[in-house]
């Protein structure tokens, strides 16, 4: 069996991509660009490389549809992978070793060169078979997703070039599922980091003055940590991480001398707001807490991501419906949830484009960012089969 997989050109192409060590930090994307251009040439599709930031190429392979004026379908994946601790790996992380039992080891097998290759293999297969799709397909390979996408999808999604792609729907990553069911992501929580500064009148540490910075800090910490406890209860009762608002006290600072009441004490919180939360109400609540804490308690954002609405899965976005129907017709269950982390899909959604994260890997132990990241060859090939049906469906909506 192993020999058969090793010689399988579908597997060979995937292995070739995995062998490129496009690993953080300081990635040279040159080899990725060369590889993708070669893929495009083989398939017979035009390729454009955008370099909005020098050294950060965005590779777009386009397959024009029968109705090129219709909005297009974007199949997005990132070229970069996270670092490895090689000593913990059973097989070298950039040699794409296939074991006798059919597991393909490599950094990026799950996150997310595997998905990018499913996109390519799907299009290759459809094009080779002489299929024509209604909508134009853009396969996009972006840099630096793992470091926040600032120089990658964020800039690209805000560019004129992106607008011209006229994207109507986007597929991006989700995560492997350890069961038979597929996992899809239709949204992400909103990441915000705030710093609250509590001011008070300085004075001597031996007194019990009112309106001290310490009392105000006490109030603030209590409010946030009480909310954290409530959210944690939801999580402990079985809610998915993506559905709860997480709060963490990450930093504190302030005070000048142990026996002097400080003028300033501050505390920072990392907050990930669940999509169902009214974001404006959340901000108003923080403002109210600051007011309740006392005079001169102010908060500022260190990071303030805008609220991005989840891609609708209630039928109003037709693309999701056809994905669901298509997959279910194949006898596969698909569950849609809010992504607990962050992916480039948020930048796409921010532009008003519906986006679904979809890594078509069932019965696979999630090993994103972990040692021995791997995928079974059969899971990978089945993923291509599913992707083919999905692309056929969404591109013909």
């Amino acid at each position, binding site marked *: 069996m192993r020999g058969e997989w090793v010689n399988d050109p579908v597997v060979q192409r995937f292995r070739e991509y995995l062998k490129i060590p496009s690993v953080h930090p300081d990635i040279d994307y040159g080899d990725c660009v060369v590889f993708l251009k070669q893929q495009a040439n083989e398939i017979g599709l035009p390729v454009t490389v955008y370099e909005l930031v020098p050294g950060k190429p965005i590779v777009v392979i386009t397959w024009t549809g029968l109705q090129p004026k219709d909005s297009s379908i974007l199949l997005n994946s990132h070229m970069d992978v996270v670092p490895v601790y090689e000593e913990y790996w059973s097989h070298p992380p950039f040699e794409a070793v296939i074991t006798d039992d059919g597991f393909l080891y490599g950094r990026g097998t799950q996150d997310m060169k595997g998905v990018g290759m499913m996109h390519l293999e799907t299009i290759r297969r459809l094009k080779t078979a002489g299929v024509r799709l209604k909508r134009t397909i853009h396969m996009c390979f972006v840099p630096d997703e793992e470091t926040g996408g600032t120089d990658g999808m964020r800039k690209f999604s805000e560019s004129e070039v992106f607008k011209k792609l006229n994207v109507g729907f986007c597929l991006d990553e989700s995560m492997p599922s350890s069961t038979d069911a597929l996992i899809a992501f239709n949204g992400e929580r909103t990441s915000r*980091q705030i710093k609250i500064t509590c001011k008070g009148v300085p004075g001597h540490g031996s007194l019990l003055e009112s309106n001290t910075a310490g*009392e105000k800090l006490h109030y603030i910490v209590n409010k946030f*940590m009480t909310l954290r406890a409530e959210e944690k209860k939801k999580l402990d009762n079985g809610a998915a*991480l993506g559905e709860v608002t997480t709060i963490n006290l*990450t930093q*504190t600072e302030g005070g000048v001398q*142990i026996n002097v*009441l400080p003028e300033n004490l501050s505390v920072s919180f*990392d907050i990930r707001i669940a999509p169902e939360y009214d974001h404006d109400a959340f901000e108003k609540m923080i403002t109210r807490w600051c007011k309740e804490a006392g005079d001169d308690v102010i908060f500022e954002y260190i990071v303030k991501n805008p609220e991005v609405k989840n891609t609708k899965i209630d039928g109003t976005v037709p693309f999701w419906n056809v994905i669901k129907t298509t997959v279910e017709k194949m006898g596969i269950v698909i569950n849609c949830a809010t992504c607990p982390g962050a992916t480039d899909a948020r930048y796409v959604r921010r532009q008003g484009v519906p986006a679904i994260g979809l890594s078509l890997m069932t019965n696979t132990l999630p090993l994103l960012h972990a040692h021995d990241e791997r995928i079974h060859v059969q899971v990978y090939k089945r993923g291509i089969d599913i992707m083919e049906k999905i692309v056929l469906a969404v591109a013909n909506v």
Partner: protein
Amino acid sequence: MAAKYEDNAAVANFVEYLKIPSVQPNINYDACVTFLQRQAKEIGLSVKIYEVVPRKPIVVLTWPGKEPSLPTVLLNSHMDVVPVFENSWTYPPFSGHIDKDGKIFARGSQDMKCVGIQYLEAIRILKQSGVQLKRTLHVSFVPDEEIGGLDGMKKFVLTNDFKALNIGFALDEGMANPTEEFIIFNGERSIWQLHVNCTGPPGHGSLLIPNTAGEKLRYIIDKFMDFREEQNKILHGDSKLTIGDVTTVNLTQVYGGVQSNVIPEKLTAVFDIRLAVTVNHVQFENRVKRWCEEAGDGVTFEFEQKNPFVECTKTDASNPYWVAFKKATDEMGLKLDIRIFPGGTDSRYIRRVGIPAIGFSPMNNTPVLLHDHDEFLRADIYLKGIDIYVKLLAAVANV
């Protein structure tokens, strides 16, 4: 009015002392020492300079009693004063300006050059009237009280020179009071300053992992601040209580964390605590330990300062000096209000070596202006204070 005091020698001595800018920081005490040596000579007292730490002189003027082998009485005051914001003063803070109402303006007029000179003026009067007291009086002038007395009284009480003074009772500073009562301090709270370190597993800020440093810090702040609020309620629930009667807690510093999206390994809260004299130290420390245990694994505390328990000076029949003090003030018709000092004075070092000490600055009907702008003392209050000390010193030194 001012003219009335111009020829008053006691006022003139006071003003001369006030004019010496022995102000923190980096004080040169030479002018104080010279002034005090001259006073000693004029009054006819012996004088000794102890320099436990170089440039930090302790000046002791001595008036031997009739029974010099008996324990002596120490009259303590400090020579240093706290800094000034001169722009906020009506008169220059080292001018000793006397206004038309007889107010003597200067840094140190209340805290506490007044008391030092009052001791001397009272002794001058007693000596001039031909009296000799039973017990020896030592009048000490110490440096650096305002910065904690580390190089002053704290070290001095531990020396053999101090032991040789054979002190049985001490008077030190009290505080002004706007009403007719005189405030008496017989004890001080114990200062405990501690850092509580809350540790937990680091992790990504998007998760809700258990046992984080933040949750533990919240618990700790809750416990300390709830306790603070209890004490505040006790204080405000009883009009007889003053700040010195309760345990105060203040969150004065917080630090910890590396990045706003990373759950930190360690967060620290720093508290300034002043334990009321009624608090059992062992029990209180156990309570803090319990709070740390309840907060979770890896919560520890360390002391930056931990004052030992110091007995209050007795204000009952068991203390003969107090009995004499009280009898004298009763005879003068002075109303006393006995309290625990809210902050820290050099008295704590004296009490720590087992000597009873009373804090008393004879300043009733006087606004509390220590450390404030436009610190002043009315000349009539100052002079009345000398009369009070004449009776008081005679009483406590004749025990």
